């Protein structure tokens, strides 16, 4: 069965490593913070200028001066720090941030990503996405494999305006975990109960399939 958003977040949480600084995008990536394995120290960065982001505040404790990049009220954890926007993107560009997890409208087999603009529709802006994808060494995309019309979003070539080129390393969808290799998408894992054929059908890009593809474990 295909995963729900929480399932995708749980699977991505398995990519976290002790000592990682992580930037989470809006949407499914934000959920990853709920599934950090116990006994693991991970610090979350939000690009509006905070490291050491904690959970939402208790009712009544909201502080308009303490928000995340989604403009949500947050708290900070011991060891947290605030800084300005230029320093925030400085640490992103200089790859102090170990892992970036973000959503996408399309990804391509060369690692291109499109997630900010649909021609003909109101464009809200790229926010920090272009800086993040152009800078991060380790980018995992959390996304749905197909759109609402059933069309694949895992493509040979992106059709939408790009956010970044050749930058995505791994994709986790409701159906599969894919790695971006120099030769294209390699199928690493399938969602529980999902067959390799189903994944191939849902994927416009070619898939490199070697041996038996294991089911995801959580």
């Amino acid at each position, binding site marked *: 069965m295909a995963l729900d958003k929480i399932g995708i977040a749980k699977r991505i949480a398995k990519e976290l490593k002790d000592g990682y600084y992580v930037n989470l995008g809006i949407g499914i990536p934000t959920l990853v913070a709920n599934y950090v394995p116990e006994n693991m120290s991970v610090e979350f960065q939000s690009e509006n200028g905070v490291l050491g982001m904690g959970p939402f505040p*208790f*009712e009544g404790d909201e502080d*308009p001066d303490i*928000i995340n990049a989604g403009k949500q009220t947050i708290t900070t954890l011991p060891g947290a720090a605030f800084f*300005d926007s230029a320093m925030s993107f400085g640490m992103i*560009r200089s790859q102090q941030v170990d892992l970036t997890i973000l959503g996408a409208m399309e990804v391509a087999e060369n690692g291109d990503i499109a997630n900010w603009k649909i021609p003909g529709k109101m464009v809200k802006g790229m926010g*920090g996405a*272009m800086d993040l994808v152009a800078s991060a060494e380790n980018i995992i995309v959390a996304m749905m494999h197909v759109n609402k019309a059933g069309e694949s979003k895992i493509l040979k070539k992106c059709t939408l305006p790009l956010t970044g080129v050749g930058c995505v390393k791994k994709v986790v969808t409701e159906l599969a975990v894919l790695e971006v290799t120099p030769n294209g998408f390699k199928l690493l894992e399938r969602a529980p109960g999902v067959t390799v054929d189903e994944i191939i059908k849902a994927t416009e890009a070619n898939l490199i399939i070697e041996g038996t593809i294991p089911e995801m474990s959580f």
Partner: protein
Amino acid sequence: MINKKVANAQEALKDVQDHQTIMVGGFGLSGIPENSIAELVNKNVKGLTCISNNAGVDDFGLGLLLQKRQVKKMIASYVGENAEFERQMLSGELEVELTPQGTLAEKCRAAQAGIPAFFTPAGYGTEVAEGKETREFNGKMYVMEEAYQADFAIVKAWKGDEAGNLIFRGTARNFNACMAGAGKITVAEVEELVPAGELDPNQIHIPGIYVKRIFQGSNYEKRIEQRTVRKRD
């Protein structure tokens, strides 16, 4: 001590003119210079180019300037929460330059630091890089971006002193700290203005040299855009 104190927003912004370029600090509605925005609305200056990460919401922040059609061009990274903005953009009344957030911050910082241009990887291979110089450094491609040139930079801090020194609070530091000194004239409004000597020099985030005029703001609403909470057990 060089005294930067002025009485209020009216005095601080007395020489803002039509068609000028104005940087405005804040991220979303957090850390926006509320008093100064109200004064720009009051002055009814027109044809402004605003550089700010966001464009406020319909009835708060820079949305107030948009409502009165005072903004000719908006330079921002994300403008998602504003219906009037959308209407003006789609009708062509409002010119919009979308810029990656880190590039926007660095274009401010470069102006503050006297650096005319820099190379960033953000936007390489995308429409953001169209028409811009690109160059390879150590095997990776970068786009050249130029520092902003603004007539005014308007920032908001938590505390300040009469010498113009600023201290920010929480994530309200955001673009405020990058924009201070990045315009020809920097105006700072603060929640609490104290005499020189009362702030610990070790704790200053922005030294007063970057600030031309400072005043104590009043009636801060500090509106929260996305109130997210958890229940107490």
